[in-house]
């Protein structure tokens, strides 16, 4: 064994010498996006916490790259005087414990000015307090659970939970009922079975939906829970099938929803599956989402919005693909909110940690026109933009069928 390794080391050494004459693609100092801007004061960091690996990575990578796009544009436009901005993306694997580590890592860096993320409401719960302790603003492109901003009694006695937390998307107390209205009134599905993955997002969304279904004269015929990482749903499907529902509502994300829909069909349960923004991704269809399945998502369809076109074009130009996924435009807006507030905070001076208070105030009062429409925060940190869209799977693609605001 040893003899071999000695020999191979000798061979590697010899090979290096032989190859020594080869050329190199020497390039120096390439890829400096700062261009002609003054970046003499150094580099500031916009953090991103999102699932960059694992089942939800399609959504997470869309969030990360869209934030990078916003930062690149700011660097080119010299939005923040004297500084170059970078993105530091941390993987949370959609896992609260990993999210805590990621947030701790970002919060120990004095140059982090704000954080875009998280994707999952369950992860947000653990990230919020860590960033609050360091007064780092967190702007989420995707957390839809209402308790994150307004507390457990979000309808009756809303109370701001974290003064560093903002989001640019509409919440489940709008999304769930909006879906219920569509299911019961428009699609005429009266008997609805609910399956959730038991997480903050899925269970919360389903709870909001069921209240509204009852209000509109529909009926919840049953409720089941599956594991977020399950692959075989035959047991749950057999249970649900016996209840003869008109539709199944799934509170959760696409990695389970896709196979669930497909297995429903092959088990002879031929009813549409509906979900929230967590299943609104091309991957849902790839994994088995069938024709007629429905999803609600926050905001107007990105492609249709005039303000979004510039974002889509720039994204395509930078990354070559349109994989910004469900939350790309929101992430772009979230990053821009942080950058805009930072420009106002610094205003020609130098950054230091004592500026974090005014940074928080400036994010709160930020207002701009973004890829998802108007970006502005109310007194709880929620977005004032409450547009929702229902999509349906039509010839293998998501197609928008209804856009509007929830009006009761």
């Amino acid at each position, binding site marked *: 064994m040893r003899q071999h390794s000695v020999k191979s080391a000798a061979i590697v050494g010899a090979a290096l010498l032989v190859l020594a004459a080869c050329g190199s693609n020497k390039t120096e100092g390439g890829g400096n996006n700062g261009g002609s801007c003054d970046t003499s004061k150094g580099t500031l960091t916009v953090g991103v916490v999102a699932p960059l*690996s*694992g*089942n*939800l*990575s*399609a959504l997470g990578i869309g969030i990360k790259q869209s934030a990078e796009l916003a930062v690149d544009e700011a660097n080119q436009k010299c939005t923040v005087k004297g500084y170059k901005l970078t993105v530091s993306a941390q993987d949370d694997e959609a896992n609260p414990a990993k999210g805590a580590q990621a947030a701790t890592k970002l919060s120990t860096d004095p140059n982090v000015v704000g954080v875009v993320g998280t994707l999952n409401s369950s992860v947000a719960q653990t990230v919020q307090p860590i960033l609050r302790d360091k007064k780092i603003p967190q702007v989420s492109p995707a957390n839809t659970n209402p308790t994150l901003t307004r507390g457990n009694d979000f309808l009756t006695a809303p109370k701001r939970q974290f003064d560093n937390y903002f989001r640019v998307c509409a919440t489940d107390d709008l999304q769930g009922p909006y879906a219920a209205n569509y299911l019961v009134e428009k699609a005429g599905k009266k008997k609805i079975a609910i399956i959730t993955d*038991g997480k903050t997002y899925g269970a919360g969304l389903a709870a909001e939906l069921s209240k509204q279904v009852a209000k509109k004269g529909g009926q919840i015929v049953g409720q*089941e*829970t*599956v*594991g977020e*990482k399950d*692959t*075989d749903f*035959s*047991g*749950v499907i*057999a*249970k649900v*099938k*016996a209840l003869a529902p008109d539709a199944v509502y799934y509170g959760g994300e696409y*990695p389970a929803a*896709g*196979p669930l829909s*497909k*297995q429903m069909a*092959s*088990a*002879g349960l031929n009813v549409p599956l509906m979900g929230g923004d967590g299943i609104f991704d091309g*991957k849902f269809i*790839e*994994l*088995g989402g069938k024709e007629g399945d429905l999803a609600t998502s926050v905001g107007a369809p990105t492609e249709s919005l005039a303000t979004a076109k510039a974002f889509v074009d720039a994204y395509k130009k930078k990354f070559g693909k349109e994989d910004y996924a469900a939350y790309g435009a929101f992430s772009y807006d979230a990053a821009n909110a942080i950058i805009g507030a930072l420009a106002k905070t610094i205003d020609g001076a130098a950054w230091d940690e004592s500026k974090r208070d005014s940074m928080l105030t400036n994010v709160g009062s930020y207002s701009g026109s973004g890829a998802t429409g108007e970006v502005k925060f109310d007194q709880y940190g929620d977005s004032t933009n409450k547009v929702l869209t229902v999509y349906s799977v039509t010839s293998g693609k998501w197609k928008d069928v209804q856009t509007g605001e929830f009006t009761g």
Partner: protein
Amino acid sequence: MSVLLQQLANGVIQGALIALIALGYTMVYGIIQLINFAHGEVFMVASYGGLATFTLLPDDLKKSPAVALPLMFVGGIVVAVLVAVIMERFAYRPLRNAPRLAPLITALGVSVFLQEAVRVWYPNATSNLPYPKVFPEGSLSLGSVNIAWTGVLLVGLSVGLSVILQTYINKSRMGRAMRATAQDPDTAKLMGVNPDRVIVLTFIFGAVLAGVAGVMFGGYLNNINIDMGFQNGIFAFTAAVLGGVGSIRGAVIGAFIIGLIKTLAGQYMPGGTQYDYVWIFVVLILVLVFRPQGLFGEPERVRA
């Protein structure tokens, strides 16, 4: 009633899948008393092998299931056998005389390594991957009970292959050598049996079955992920223990029992499908503690 029948059918399909994997555990344990913990990962790797085969096919072949499907099976089996043979040669064989825990720890290492290798190196394997639609679609309806055609195929393959295996081991010359080695390796060696060959062959048989199972898993559930090996491996191991490790018939029957426990517990036990997994582990512990020789195994010798 129809729910019960449907769940029974689901359980049988589940059992058929587990049986294919359990045979690999039971044969290896029978011959070298090794809990080949990595066998579940062989099953997982096979599934990705089948998928990779499909991805590599030219487009016109992808559209004809009659060609694509057999090729996927071949691809899955080849990958599984390769992995199993390399694993036996380089990880287990050097440890054949080592203290008992060493091979088990090695098996753990192999298991983690394989799972991570697929996660890192197979494109997009960090998330669930959809399986191609070359399998028979639709389902067989018997009254109110629906059974997907892929499920029927799975049960057929599982039962058929175990019967063939049982016959081979009982009737063929090589099968006799395997049984002899299992009973007394030293005497078998004196009788002219080459133990290395027998052991490699055992690993290959297990891998072939795991390969079939891996591809069928994708076909039946439409999507695969890197955790499938660990989960189903544990089920299969439980089935092998329940049936009595070393016994082919025991493993198959054990597998069907486990499949039924899973679906019926999901339907009728408190906690529902969320805890079906837990009941299997409870069964595993109870069997190991109270009847370690399993339902069909020989009375226990000293296991240290």
